[in-house]
């Protein structure tokens, strides 16, 4: 009896499962239909995946705002080869496995012709092999880890890479701040932070500086007093904290409350309006390297900021600017391409030279990385004051 019932149950499970198989088959078909009409029809379909929810939500949302603005402008101007651009945005909750699922969905179900994303390098690394495998060009707006574009010839980026950002800040610390001793406080959980810290350390030592401490924390932590006390004992001239804005804000507060007065320095992970909200006055007077500055007098930038403010009633951060540039570079390549297929667009993307973007003059090099200058800004309340531009 027992066994027969058990067998019955398994058959029932299998029946249920195959029923669902039937359902998904249907959705798969509709997906194909949509893709087919898009490829030959009136729309140029692009996909975006990003962290619209989760602890790095502002990154995904900012990028998306910039990208959507680029798309609307291009559509108003007649689209690409007479086709309107349609964007499909999927949330990955800031999780690597979700990013892989989202990109697989964009490519195989929605049949997008190009993919834009992600901000964080670890998520880009999870998704890039999928784009590469299907020969769909992927442009990461702001993944700075060198490994991302090494995945394959369909993976591009419009931002500079970690070595450059670390090197820039080391140069800045040594030449502009005249710092001799710097402490590093890195986020071991983030490859981004580790990359920046390593390259900073290397360059700074080359320039004759000394790294007093190299201590670590993990994103998600709240209390950094232990590490900061250790740093305070070494009396550095500055502290390099290449982390993300949430922890950096807290670190700044705790550093000041411990009586550490030297400036903090960081990378583009600081770039969020939340930084001054979390850090308060404690973060003022600190420096970070960034992709662009809102204080620029370059007409391209001034114009971009004006239009962005009209739409969203807020000042665009670097990620919004990069999302905008990623979109623009893709559209320009698509316009030049012989047809709107992955390989054709890829070929033109690789030929991008001296593209005048909001984040500077961008050329795509042989490793599909962007060759462009970086700016260093100083935090002053909610605005970031432009300090200097450092070219590669």
């Amino acid at each position, binding site marked *: 009896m027992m066994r027969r*019932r058990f067998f019955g149950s398994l058959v029932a499970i*299998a029946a249920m499962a195959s029923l669902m198989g039937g359902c998904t088959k249907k959705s*798969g078909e509709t997906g194909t239909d949509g893709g087919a009409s898009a490829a030959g029809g009136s729309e140029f379909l692009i996909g975006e995946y990003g962290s619209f929810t989760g602890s790095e939500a502002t990154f995904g949302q900012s990028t998306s705002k910039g990208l959507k603005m680029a798309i609307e402008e291009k559509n108003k101007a007649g689209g690409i080869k007479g086709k309107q651009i349609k964007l499909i945005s999927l949330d990955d909750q800031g999780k690597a496995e979700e990013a892989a699922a989202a990109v697989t969905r964009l490519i195989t179900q929605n049949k997008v012709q190009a993919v834009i994303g992600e901000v964080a390098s670890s998520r880009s690394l*999870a998704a890039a092999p999928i784009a590469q495998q299907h020969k769909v060009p992927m442009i990461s707006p702001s993944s700075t880890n060198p490994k991302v574009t090494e995945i394959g010839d369909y993976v591009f980026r419009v931002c500079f890479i970690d070595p450059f950002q670390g090197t820039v800040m080391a140069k800045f610390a040594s030449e502009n701040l005249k710092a001799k001793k710097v402490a590093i406080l890195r986020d071991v959980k983030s490859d981004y932070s580790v990359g920046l810290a390593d390259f900073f350390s290397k360059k700074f030592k080359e320039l004759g500086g000394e790294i007093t401490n190299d201590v670590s924390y993990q994103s998600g932590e709240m209390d950094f007093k232990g590490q900061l006390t250790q740093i305070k004992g070494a009396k550095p001239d500055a502290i390099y904290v290449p982390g993300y804005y949430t922890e950096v804000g807290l670190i700044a507060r705790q550093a000041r409350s411990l009586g550490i007065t030297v400036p903090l320095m960081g990378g583009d992970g600081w770039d969020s309006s939340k930084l001054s909200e979390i850090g308060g006055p404690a973060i003022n007077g600190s420096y970070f390297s960034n992709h662009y500055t809102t204080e620029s007098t370059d007409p391209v930038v001034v114009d971009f900021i004006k239009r962005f403010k009209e739409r969203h009633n807020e000042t665009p951060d670097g990620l919004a600017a990069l999302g905008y540039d990623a979109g623009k570079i893709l559209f320009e390549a698509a316009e030049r391409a012989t047809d709107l297929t992955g390989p054709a667009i890829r070929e033109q993307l690789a030929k991008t030279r001296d593209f005048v973007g909001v984040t500077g003059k961008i050329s795509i090099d042989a490793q599909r990385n962007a060759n462009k200058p970086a700016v260093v800004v100083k935090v002053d309340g909610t605005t970031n004051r432009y300090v200097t531009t450092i070219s590669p």
Partner: protein
Amino acid sequence: MPSPSTPSKMFQKSLVTPVAAMAVLAGLGYVIDVTANQYVQLIFLYICVNTILALSLNLVNGFTGQFSIGHAGFMAVGAYVSAWLSMHAHPMLLSGQLEFLNYILYAAAGGTFAALAGWFVGLPSLRLRGDYLAIVTLGFGEIIRVILLNTEAVGGARGMFGIPSPGDFMTKFLLATFWVMITFLTLWRLVHSVHGRAFLSVREDEIAAQAMGIDTTKVKVRAFVISSFFAGVAGSIFAHAAQYLNPSTFTFTKSVDAIIMVVLGGLGSLTGSVFAAIIVTILPEFVLRPLQEYTGVDLRMVIYSLALILFMIARPAGIFGTRELPDLFKRKAQ
């Protein structure tokens, strides 16, 4: 039912169910392979992973009545061991047509390491009860993640990429369902055996169980080690399906996901865990993603959480309670 006359006949009879079920699942795999796109295929592989994860956790949380919240840690051990072996131990094993069989070995190795970890954690901590065990398992899960984060050999925070896969979808799906079957049958046979009764007695009343001559610590460790083994297997399948591993996947949230599946399906119901794993995997992907695309508003996680809350209010004991799917048929027959 006439009792089978010889042991060999009994053995033959016991093979009927798994072989038939495997055939049905293989047929399903073929249908998906031909008709569905890669995204749908990936989600079906995730269903297999989650099913194994939920089934294995049910043994500890459901049948033995302990509360483990570090399941993601064991999954991570299995995933990383399996991925590492597939990248480094490759030349020593089979090649050519039979290459995919290696992946059974990788999964078994991943499972074994996870089981060892389970034994290592379980032996001292399972003398504790309830909340204390929960804290220890939570701590263990975090320790594993932090170790992985700081191990450059497996990529550290960057993650491990370029993990080989057994082959096309059909191969992956057959390997995954093979392990689902193994897990389900092992646990089914186990909980219906004398050992299973021991698990249940520990859940119902530990002191009474002890009075009946059951070594409760031994029983708990046994459940924990078996559960860890299959969590490791689930990790291995996940590693070769996603082909990318990052320590951030195996956070506390992943453990909670597994607990949600077990509680939703019913603590102490294996078929319930299977159903819950299917629902929990499909709901955010096949139902809520299209919804998000049509409406343009991202309420995916809000609706998902709301659905879970409503589910638990409507059926506090889970979909199946402690009953199994066949029990429902038995009722109808009466």
